[in-house]
């Protein structure tokens, strides 16, 4: 039952791991951006007059490095042009002939793409950032429980982000223009996820909006669990919410996909 999906996953994974040189070049870029982000936050935190923010500088630093290391797990703009072309060119007809569900198949493909590009990049970035001089060093999580919860929430977050990006691909069935859908989702999604600034640094009214949306469970939640900014008790409850959102998003995705596929018109070729 699960076997074809697993095969797609493995195939894609080894395919993605081929581009090692590109990954190493990418690591350099990640580091540069990481430093820039941290220095900007550092400049803000140099203000002693401000009321104590809900997040300490070392927590923000950890947040930045984790963001850089797991970029492939959390960005929405990572795209699979092959899938877009399938939809817009009409080759989707072949996919429909396959004996396995198209939702699951694409889900596995997207998951593998993210896994392979993150696996190559995250370890070197994490390793180096553990040994950077202060104040740039990535601190260890406060206790082992926090670390375990971080790993769990990161993995569920990954499943969540793939479920969200599946919605982008499904929307292309309707709009037929990948650029527009991708842009709208990624611009707002990443802001609400806490990619630009961590959620606790936003004003209260904005936080209320953010917490009502699923995006922050993919970025903000796992990273703050790591730093201990979210207590282990809250983190456990958060995991439950993550799972609920995941189930809801996959459910919506499957229904939307079936609807879109029923209307799909393959224009010859």
């Amino acid at each position: 039952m699960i076997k074809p999906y697993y095969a797609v996953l493995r195939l894609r994974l080894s395919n993605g791991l081929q581009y090692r040189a590109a990954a190493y070049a990418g690591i350099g870029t990640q580091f540069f951006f990481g430093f820039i982000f941290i220095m900007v936050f550092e400049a803000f935190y140099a203000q002693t007059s401000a009321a104590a923010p809900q997040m300490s500088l070392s927590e923000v630093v950890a947040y930045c490095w984790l963001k850089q290391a797991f970029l492939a797990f959390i960005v929405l703009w990572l795209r699979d042009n092959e899938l877009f072309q399938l939809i817009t060119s009409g080759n989707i007809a072949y996919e429909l002939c396959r004996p396995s569900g198209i939702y699951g198949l694409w889900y596995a493909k997207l998951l593998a793409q993210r896994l392979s590009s993150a696996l190559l990049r995250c370890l070197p970035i994490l390793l180096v950032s553990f040994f950077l001089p202060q104040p740039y060093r990535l601190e260890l999580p406060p206790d082992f429980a926090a670390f375990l919860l971080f790993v769990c929430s990161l993995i569920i977050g990954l499943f969540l982000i793939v479920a969200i990006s599946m919605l982008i691909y499904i929307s292309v069935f309707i709009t037929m223009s990948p650029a527009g859908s991708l842009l709208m989702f990624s611009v707002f999604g990443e802001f609400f996820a806490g990619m630009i600034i961590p959620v606790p640094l936003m004003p209260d009214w904005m936080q209320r909006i953010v917490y009502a949306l699923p995006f922050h469970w993919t970025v903000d939640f796992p990273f703050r669990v790591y730093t201990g900014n979210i207590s282990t008790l809250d983190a456990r409850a958060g995991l439950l919410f993550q799972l609920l959102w995941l189930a809801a998003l996959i459910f919506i995705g499957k229904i939307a996909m079936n609807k879109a596929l029923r209307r799909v018109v393959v224009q010859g070729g």
Partner: protein
Amino acid sequence: MTLYFKYMLLLFKAQMEYRASFLLLVLGQCLTPFTVFTGLYFMFERFGDMKGWSFYEVLLCFAVTHMAFSITECFARGFDMFSSLVVSGDFDRLLVRPRGTIIQVLGSKFEFSRVGRLLLGAGVLIWAIMNLDIAWSPLKITALVLMEASGVIIFASIFILCASFSFWTVQGLEIANILTDGGREMTQYPLSIYHRRIQQFFTFIIPFGCANYLPLQYILGREENPIYAFLPLAGLLFLVPCLLIWQIGVRRYRSTGS
């Protein structure tokens, strides 16, 4: 030069064929820096100040950078996408034509949708200027215009430099993003907030500091010396080695043959 405008008109007409998609892209180009801007606003709301820089002062910096970057991306996009010309071997066609390579590559692509980012930048610039108490003088206005022009020249030089690398590597390099996107990310804040080494690198090697941070100090009245107003001209100095590398690259270019 007339040739350049002909290229431009042609590509403009071509992009206008897909009007709805074009407008969406313009909107998107406007929104991307808008979220960064919103983040900046929230941060200032919480912290009030950034190492002695007020919100509107940083906004001025932000606006100048984003405007310069969007103008460059609109006009020098050909260099940004240059590696694809080398990979496909299409660069050969440019070489046999009786015109310079630079003007042809420049004319090979225009991204008019970048107007979105430009509009946002211009809006932010006006907003910042209206809220800043600056005693404007002709020299200060000159400085602002020079900053903008110099920013465009530096970004364009970087595009040319990165494009030249693809003569050697064939493939484009992701690491080039450090200079283009990284340069943009970095110069949207005043240079003084960064580590000393980074300040030095981006003032003396890649003269972003001369184009942005130093003349800004003059405009804001933190420095009285009028020489600061003309520092953006240093951007021109950076263009020279980049063009030289480009020429060397063209000379040793070997077609991929496909």
